[in-house]
């Protein structure tokens, strides 16, 4: 295969030359297709690996850090929680239902590949403005696909987020996070070991699914006329995955496996070569032993197929019969396709004939890593959002509040999350809209709190501080539920890193992520990077999505978002300096993005989290909610709507402009309610300002001498606006 073949497969000429040099000859079709995938950005992280190495990955509770299929943290009594977030952006843009469904399927496999039983899914979605028909189509089908897969496999979907912004119009984002539960001693790794041990492929048969870049080979080799050989969309089969999941866990529980690995991007190629690389061994695979859905597949197609619902395991020869018997009991196909060797080469056979021979190291470790060439832009990268409300509307607090509650980024997510089973597993102590983080009961009797966050517009305004804010917001959500962060996972969704401004966004965001994690003492346990998210309309907002798992000792004292008791006092808590620049209200009125966000005193924010968390855990607060999109008044309105109780607010004089006080955004602020004594006690630990009282059936707001009233029914109607998108 020539340089031009390599370029057609997405490699550079230099990379091709590097391959020729490493293996000492030209690669054949099988080898080149394997290289093209393993050396792709997706598998090799060649543009991000150096930056990712700057993230903190150690912590006292860390059990499994980046590098394995999922990370894990210790929750005590011999139990660990595994978790990871991953993107499925491109497949979802092509076919949103199947793309989103297989995204869920993929992240679940990552979790049970380390031996953990998946117990929850969260999803993080970004679409263009819902005024666009295409965005509505993508939204409806992506949500249906996520629901279809998670509901059918019986894993609760307990939370997520969705934003609508024009820069995602051409490039939607579909990220999914999965959480698993495992006995720490039963965690299994993916390193292949034991020369002579057998490689068993189990799960679905292999078809021509998702033969992405390598399709070029298909057309080169098979002739363009043969339309049926074209690569195909991956179809998810949650029923197959359910059986695969139970089968994998039973294999592990019976102690039959040496190593286990899921098949994701680049299919058999990446799973097998990564197992070999980690175990420092070689592998032999005979592609003709792979059960096929279509009989006439070429060796390279079998090696790169991304057919879903497949796993690869290593077991000793004596265990093969038992392994296959477990597969049969779960009605899962299982086949020995090869074995472990001491050659440190991948030897690919086609019915006994050698068709590929690559040193494992060349495939997995020798990929060139690139330094980015970041450059801060000197002109705005993104056009100002299109105004959707008038200056008059934005200037009147009552109509601004209604507009914010209606805004697609703030309106209730109920029309989405009602399509997900949030209960299966009998662990869900806090469902969506009950608390700022989902809360799940653990077998230890304690609980975990989980949240996922990332406001791309703020990161676009200021990649460093925007990323810090994403981490802090996630931790704030946990604090409101009573949770203390144990670990963080992230998915970095960015444009083309070869462009200096995107490189700058990525570099700054990762620096922010790292600094925030260090400041909170939270290790990064893993994550995912999705680059080149650019359509005709330019790059997406830089979108680092942050997922966090925290613990809370007593689920009885899990926090709530909604007001819960008449006559409770309401207070604003924390080092909160609201600014309209970069806020949701600024977006609605069409303001350009700022070029900077205000400085953040992370230590003070952390102290506020600790104070809120302590008060929630002690059962002293009736409600706690962090101030995010839409600012203070939106946060109060949300607590009122979710609790079904109004509020009377009296904000005294201040030199800050009323609109900025009510709707400005920033990090570090909370709205809490509770008995006046309890709030006084909290005020000894953190800045606290009592602003009103719970009660009535309206929001009755006085600010700087001006008053208005918004009935809860009217607020609720505005907040239900997303329902129109699913009518």
């Amino acid at each position, binding site marked *: 295969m020539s340089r031009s073949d390599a370029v057609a497969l997405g490699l550079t000429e230099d990379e091709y030359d590097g391959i020729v040099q490493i293996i000492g000859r030209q690669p054949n079709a099988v080898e080149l297709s394997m290289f093209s995938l393993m050396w792709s950005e997706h598998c090799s992280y060649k543009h991000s690996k150096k930056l990712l190495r700057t993230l903190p990955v150690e912590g006292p509770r860390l059990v499994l850090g980046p590098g394995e299929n999922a990370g894990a943290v210790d929750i005590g009594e011999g139990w660990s929680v595994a978790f990871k977030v991953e993107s499925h952006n491109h497949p979802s843009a*092509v*076919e949103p239902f*199947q793309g989103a469904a297989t995204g869920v399927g993929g992240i679940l496999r990552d979790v049970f590949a380390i031996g953990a039983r998946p117990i929850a899914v969260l999803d993080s979605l970004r679409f263009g403005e819902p005024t666009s028909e295409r965005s509505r189509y993508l939204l409806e089908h992506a949500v249906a696909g996520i629901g279809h897969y998670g509901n059918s496999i019986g894993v609760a979907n307990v939370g997520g987020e969705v934003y609508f912004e024009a820069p995602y119009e051409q490039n939607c984002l579909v990220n999914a996070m999965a959480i698993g539960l495992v006995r720490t001693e039963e965690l299994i790794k993916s390193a292949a070991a034991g020369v002579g041990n057998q490689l068993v492929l189990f799960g*679905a048969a292999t*078809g*021509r*699914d998702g033969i992405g870049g390598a399709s070029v080979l298909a057309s080169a080799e098979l002739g363009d006329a043969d*339309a*049926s050989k074209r690569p*195909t*969309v*991956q*179809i998810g*089969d949650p*029923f*197959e995955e359910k059986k695969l999941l139970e089968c994998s866990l039973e294999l592990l529980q019976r102690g039959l496996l040496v190593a286990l690995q899921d098949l994701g991007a680049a299919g058999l190629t990446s799973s097998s070569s990564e197992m070999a690389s980690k175990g420092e061994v070689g592998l032999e695979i005979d592609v003709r032993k792979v059960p096929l*859905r*279509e009989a006439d597949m070429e060796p390279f197609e079998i090696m790169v197929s991304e*057919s*879903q619902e497949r796993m690869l395991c290593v077991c000793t020869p004596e265990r093969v019969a038992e392994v296959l018997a477990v597969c049969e009991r779960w*009605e899962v196909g299982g086949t020995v396709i090869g074995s472990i060797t001491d050659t440190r080469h991948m030897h690919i056979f086609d019915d006994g004939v050698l068709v590929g021979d690559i040193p494992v190291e060349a495939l997995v470790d020798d990929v060139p890593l690139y330094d980015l060439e970041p450059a801060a832009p000197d002109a705005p990268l993104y056009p100002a959002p299109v105004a959707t409300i008038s200056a008059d509307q934005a200037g009147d607090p009552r109509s601004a509040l209604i507009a914010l509650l209606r805004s697609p980024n703030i309106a209730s997510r109920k029309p989405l999350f009602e399509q997900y089973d949030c209960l299966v597993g009998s662990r869900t102590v806090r469902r969506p809209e009950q608390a700022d983080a989902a809360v799940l009961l653990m077998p230890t009797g304690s609980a975990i709190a989980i949240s996922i966050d990332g406001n791309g517009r703020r990161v676009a305004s200021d990649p460093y501080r925007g990323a810090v804010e994403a981490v802090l917001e996630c931790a704030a959500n946990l604090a409101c539920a009573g949770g203390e962060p144990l670990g963080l996972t992230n998915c970095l969704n960015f444009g083309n890193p070869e462009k200096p401004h995107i490189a700058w966004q990525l570099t700054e965001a990762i620096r922010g992520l790292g600094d925030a994690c260090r400041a909170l003492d939270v290790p990064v346990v893993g994550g995912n990077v999705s680059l080149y998210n650019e359509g005709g309309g330019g790059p997406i907002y830089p979108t680092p999505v942050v997922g966090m798992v925290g613990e809370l000792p007593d689920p009885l004292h899990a926090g709530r978002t909604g007001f819960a008791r008449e006559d409770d006092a309401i207070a604003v808590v924390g080092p909160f300096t609201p600014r309209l620049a970069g806020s949701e209200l600024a977006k609605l009125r069409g303001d350009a993005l700022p070029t900077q966000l205000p400085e953040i005193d992370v230590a003070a924010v952390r102290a506020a989290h600790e104070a809120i968390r302590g008060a929630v855990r002690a059962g002293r607060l009736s409600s706690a909610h962090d101030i995010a999109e839409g600012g203070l008044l939106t946060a109060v309105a949300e607590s009122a709507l979710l609790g079904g109780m109004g509020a009377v607010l009296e904000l005294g004089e201040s030199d800050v402009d009323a609109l900025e006080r009510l709707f400005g955004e920033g990090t570090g602020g909370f709205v809490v309610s509770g008995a006046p004594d309890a709030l006084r006690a909290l005020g000894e630990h953190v800045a606290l300002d009592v602003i009103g009282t719970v009660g009535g059936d309206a929001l009755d707001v006085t600010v700087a001498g001006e008053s208005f009233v918004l009935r809860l029914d009217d607020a609720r109607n505005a907040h239900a606006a997303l329902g129109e998108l699913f009518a």
Partner: protein
Amino acid sequence: MKYIGRVPRVRVLIRPKEGILDPQGKAVARALPALGFPAVDNVHVGRLVELDVEDVSQVEAMCERLLANTLIEDYEVALVSPDGEHQSQTAGPDAPRR
């Protein structure tokens, strides 16, 4: 055409494209032998849409835009008489013959 003055009835058959995973077909294929129908093969499950439409020439466009997901499905359009018999049929651009 037979039904002058009557609105023609059209039947659209929608199937998973060849090579695309058909989990439903797979499940039925597994179930039938267990029910005592062993000699069954090549099972596929798809959708059936029937409608009355004045301008039959529009049906292909309906399929492309709404009725079928042409990334993963093929469709086939047939005109039916009221007693269910075929009158004529056309298939989507690249419907395979299975």
